[in-house]
């Protein structure tokens, strides 16, 4: 199971669909990037190939967004290969969302999606930025593409829910029906 799919990481924050939810989502991406980095390590070298990138992701996971971003920027400067660069860009996008610097976050998400427009996490993060900036049509497009790439991604559903709450809000209606035979009550 991908670390990003662990529900306990984000479940409590999702309920209010607020900024903490956004931060939680950003953390999810950081987790995924740590695992990417580790899987590469196991194939190639012993120990972290890009320690700044790995430590940056860990800082982001721990909620230390500013330290995480600083380390990840250093990691990006020495990133080798496409995957490492994408991981750094994705984490920077997430990190800047965490510190609510949406302009910088968007810059790194754009860079990521220029590198790889099929990066569903990048689509998800950018959709989140657009939702926070109330650019709902752009968010919708990114979510559609993201869901085409990974239809089962829970984080995409979360952001989609945030978009729906912003554009098509609903209120819950609970009907308690004790009747043995239902009538046309509605």
């Amino acid at each position, binding site marked *: 199971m991908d670390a990003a799919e662990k529900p306990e990481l984000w479940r409590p924050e*999702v*309920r*209010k669909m607020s900024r903490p939810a956004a931060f939680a989502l950003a953390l999810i991406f950081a987790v995924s990037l740590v695992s990417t980095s580790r899987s590469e390590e196991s194939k190639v070298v012993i120990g972290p190939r890009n320690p700044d990138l790995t430590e940056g992701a860990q800082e982001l996971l721990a909620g230390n967004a500013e330290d995480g971003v600083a380390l990840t920027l250093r990691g990006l400067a020495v990133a080798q290969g496409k995957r490492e660069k994408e991981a750094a860009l994705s984490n920077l996008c997430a990190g800047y969302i965490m510190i609510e610097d949406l302009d910088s976050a968007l810059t790194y998400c754009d860079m990521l999606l220029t590198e790889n427009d099929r990066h569903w996490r990048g689509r998800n993060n950018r959709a989140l930025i657009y939702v926070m900036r109330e650019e709902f049509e752009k968010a919708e497009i990114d979510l559609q593409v993201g869901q085409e790439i990974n239809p089962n991604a829970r984080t995409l*559903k*979360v952001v*989609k*829910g945030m978009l*729906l709450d912003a*554009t*098509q*809000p*609903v*209120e*819950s*209606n*609970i*009907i*308690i*029906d*004790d*009747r*043995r035979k*239902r*009538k046309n*009550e509605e």
Partner: protein
Amino acid sequence: MAIKAGITVLFAMICIGLVGPGVASSDNDTRVTRITHFEDSTSDRIPTVTAVPQYPEKARRDRIEGEATVCYFVDSKGRIKNAAIRRSSHKMFAKPSMKAIKQSSYEPLRPNQKMSNVKTCRTYRFLLNPVAIEELE
């Protein structure tokens, strides 16, 4: 004028069998939930506590509606016994429905009344109504 309107609404509610809000059992949900309770006029057991299930957050997020029916016995003291889900349109609705029924109760039997061995069933319907964005602001 306002009183007259209130009476009209109250009369309309009685006519369609609308009893009014039950006891909300939601934990931390601060969202608005509309509650409607339709009672069975043929039953002689009177609910004292009618707990309301919490709308499952995932169902709300994904805009899923549905219903769950729970059947149970009511003992002589009005407590719910042997509650079980009879049917649920989606598994997400089963847990909050069970939780709500376990928090509900009825009035105890009076001295001249006898227990019936017939199970009682209650259906919880989970619906989502669109809200105008202006209303939220």
